């Protein structure tokens, strides 16, 4: 395989202490507003109003650090972090690390966004409500469903909301107790199983057939009058589109269940295929994935939750309505599950998604999807040529937006694991994420290029993968001892699962290691 120039990379390494180690008595980071003299005269110190037992006796053990030093600390830490803006972020498959346009950041930083209180009078937030309403209508078009709630704080929260609606629906039909099973698939996101289980459901997991697709026969065996519903990702983490998806929904519907579509990542199918055509009752999109809101080290986020007409009354309150003149909050959903997050959801994320859609339009969305798929299949073609790598399932077929690959052969032949390869990839400035458990695909790795990276960048990534695979055969120690060019070296994970040793806070670390500050 022709390889591209490998970057001579080294990550910024500041060897920065823990923030507490920077403390120096008498330093301060910020001047705080104090009460005016007249207030002090009128009220006293304010604290005397507290009963003694409610007073804090000793100031919290926070560090004392001057402002510039605090700034410097966090700036340095920031440099020690990749991020889609900095790297070719295609190795965190299932995460849709696409470009988050900077103009959208300018928009959300407006005081017209940041300084809004969620309980303001409707007349004072018409702009915000308009954005929420319009994004809802856009998502209706994109999914074919009838109404969205933008309240859930992430995809998993949206899944929980779907499970809650499914339960409320069966409750309304008096079948809630009987229908206590949710069906999902092993290549659906873990939250499809976990969030439904949190709602009290028993989980039935359908495993893949030899093509890597959820086995229809298993599904048929699984359904019964206990079936509450289906929660399924499609394309699943394998990137294979389930062509029998409509059969799945039919089987569930026939059994009296509802179908929830996990479209957290719909990045390959925008404008191509929709929840409606596959006959889903519910679906959700992660605005922080497909719709380009940045991931923020893990949120804040929005899982935009859509339903068909008959389920609108079950949505969390409020939703935003429009009476032809004014936008308003609609609490009048008689069967509402209540709420899944405080207030109205994460408005900045909603606004970014709105802006992203407005900058692309219908054709642009479809182009984004198409190029994401093009990029993915281009990579598939290349990875298959890397010695030791493979793309299990669906041989000879194309994939949608991502592929779950395997280093099984390489591990067998060299003893080098996905995790070790992932460490070595860091030396080239790349992420390679090992994906979620359970590792059905042995030594898995998942690549999802999205539409955002240029061919040259993709080629560079592949070259690095190829190089590391080669090293695994030729110089395995180099891979084993990696990373070499990163902030830190091989981490001792042994303490992290040991209650005697783990340290989730600095104070716990000091105690457990008997260090005096």
């Amino acid at each position, binding site marked *: 395989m022709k390889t591209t120039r490998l970057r001579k990379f080294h990550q910024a390494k500041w060897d920065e202490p*823990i*923030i507490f180690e920077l403390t120096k008595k008498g330093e*301060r*980071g910020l001047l*705080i507003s104090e*009460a005016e003299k007249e207030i*002090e005269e009128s009220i006293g*110190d304010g*604290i005397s109003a507290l009963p003694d*037992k409610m007073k804090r*006796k000793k100031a*919290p053990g926070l560090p004392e*650090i001057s402002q510039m030093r605090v700034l410097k600390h*966090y700036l*340095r830490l*920031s440099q020690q972090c*990749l*991020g*889609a*803006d900095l790297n070719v972020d295609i190795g965190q498959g299932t995460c849709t*690390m696409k470009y988050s346009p900077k*103009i959208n950041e300018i928009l959300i930083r*407006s005081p*017209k966004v940041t*300084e809004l*209180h*969620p309980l303001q*009078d409707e007349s004072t937030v018409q702009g*915000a409500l308009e954005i929420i309403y319009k994004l809802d209508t856009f998502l209706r078009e*994109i999914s074919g469903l009838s109404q969205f709630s933008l309240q859930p704080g992430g995809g*998993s929260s949206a899944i929980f909301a779907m499970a809650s609606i499914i*339960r409320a629906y069966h409750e309304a039909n008096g079948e809630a107790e009987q229908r206590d099973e949710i069906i999902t698939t092993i290549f659906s996101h*873990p939250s499809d199983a976990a969030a439904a289980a*949190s709602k009290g459901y028993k*989980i039935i997991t359908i495993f893949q057939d030899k093509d890597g697709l959820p086995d229809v026969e298993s599904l048929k065996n699984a359904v019964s009058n206990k079936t509450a519903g289906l929660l399924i990702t499609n394309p699943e983490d394998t990137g*294979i589109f389930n062509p029998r998806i409509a059969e799945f929904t039919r089987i569930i519907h026939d059994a009296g269940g509802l179908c929830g579509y996990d479209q957290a990542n719909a990045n390959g199918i925008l*404008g191509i295929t*929709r929840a409606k055509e596959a006959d889903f009752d519910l679906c959700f999109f992660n605005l922080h994935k497909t719709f380009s809101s940045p*991931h*923020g080290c893990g949120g804040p986020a929005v899982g935009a939750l859509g339903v068909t007409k008959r389920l609108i009354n079950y949505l969390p309150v409020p939703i935003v309505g429009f009476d032809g003149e004014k936008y308003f909050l609609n609490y009048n959903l008689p069967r509402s599950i209540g709420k899944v997050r*405080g207030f109205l959801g994460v*408005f900045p994320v909603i606004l970014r998604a709105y802006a992203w859609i407005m900058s*692309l339009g*219908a054709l642009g969305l479809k182009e984004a999807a198409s*190029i994401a*798929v*093009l990029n993915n299949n281009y990579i598939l073609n290349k990875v298959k040529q890397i010695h030791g790598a493979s793309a299990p399932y669906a041989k000879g077929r194309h994939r949608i937006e991502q592929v779950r690959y395997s280093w099984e052969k390489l591990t067998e032949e060299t003893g080098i694991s996905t995790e070790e390869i992932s*460490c070595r990839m860091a030396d080239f400035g790349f*992420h390679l994420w090992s994906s979620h*458990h359970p590792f059905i695909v042995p030594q898995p790795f998942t690549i999802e290029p999205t*539409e955002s990276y240029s061919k040259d960048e993709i080629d560079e990534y592949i070259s690095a993968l190829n190089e590391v695979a080669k090293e695994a055969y030729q110089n395995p120690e180099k891979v084993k*001892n990696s990373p070499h060019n990163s*902030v830190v070296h091989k*981490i*001792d994970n042994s*303490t*992290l699962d040991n209650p005697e040793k783990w340290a*989730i*806070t*600095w104070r716990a670390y000091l105690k457990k290691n008997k260090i005096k500050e």
Partner: protein
Amino acid sequence: MNTKKGSAHPYIPNSAPEVKAKMLKEIGVNNIDELYSDIPETLKFKGNINLPKALPSEYALKRHVEEILSKNQTCEDNLSFLGGGCWQHYVPAICDEINQRSEFLTAYAGEPYEDHGRFQALFEYESLMAELLDMDVVNVPTYDWCQAASTSIRMACRITGRNEILLSDTVSPDRLLVINNYCRPIVNIKTLKHCPKTGAIDLNDLKSKISPRTAGIYFENPSYLGFLESQGNALSDIAHENGALSIVGVDPVSLGVIAPPSHYGADIVCGDIQGLGVHMNYGGGLAGFIATHDEEKFVMEYPSRLFGITKTAVKGEYGFGDVAYDRTSFGLREKGKEFIGTCSALWGITAGVYLSLMGPEGMQKLGKTIMQKSQYAMKKISEINGVKAPLFNAPHFKEFIVDFNDTKVPVKEINKSLLKHAIFGGKDLSDDFPELGSCALYCVTEIHTKKEIDSLVQVLSDVLNKTDIKKG
């Protein structure tokens, strides 16, 4: 989309025709449609998505959005006394500087090797919160206080093996909606009466309701209604005597001056960090925390990520990683603890920056200033004829109920009039707490100047003296 003359959209490099052609060739297909061959024709969407036309330029996008946003009136343009779960505090410049850094803004789920900075920043956040709370374990933030309370309750149930929770009936109605949905059908939520005078939980009611089924008691400090629940020790004791846990929701902003719940026996503490350096963002600034002592049986019940510190192959180097990752649903799917996904990590980093800046003295001063200013506001408001604040005879922090019943004017009318004077009056409580009549929840923080409080008082009394205001 603007694709004239075969140029790519700026967000989609490989739609440049030459590149695209090259890539198709390498894959060995003629066009992109072929790549979709797995999707049955019947499922293919034949129409065009019905969306407004793409805006032709970044400039047009900016103007379009700004025009919509200009319809908003903000808490900067107006004088706001809204609180009730989202608060207007001062956000130090550096908080935004850090959370706007491209590296933090666009990072996600990388390994501790490439994202050491993210791990360290969140570990430090946990550690700083731990000092404020005087507890040894704090999670990477969850969605918000609603979720943190819900999960704290579920954790208590798993820890105790019980499934009933008693909670104060002064918990925010919104939060209660979340808790109820999150707990149903696993947990039984029962409410406890409050003392109409002080707002505090009625201990007799509690004693009559607590039982061997009780997994925990949940209350808040300050409560949603602003007063402090001063019986913390007694409540925790009663819980513990009955084999239940004490779960306390707390406003971390108060903890420079007010004792943290761990000091009065709380086993699980939760709350929101929005007040610690995050803009309100129309409610998008919320982020929840959960804290416990460092005991295995507690730690193992968190659904959240818990970042821990450890060593590396190089002496003296700190490394970070997930503590007990296999608890999580990432590890165990439905066998994991509840579920985990994208939550509100960026606000955790931000709160860490905030606490680093504030230091012990800053948090003390902040607490004191808020105590003083809110007490001043209560005092002055109470000088208005027929108006009383606070409603409850108890110490308060930041928020308090203003009782307008004697004026006979409904809060709705008052707030309408205030709005005309560019004042956002306190949240109307009459729908959620009908028994209170015409009452509103006011919030006063360090950002309110004496002049502004005085002007609220002035406008309020003017408004209430106007003859044309609609009496209820």
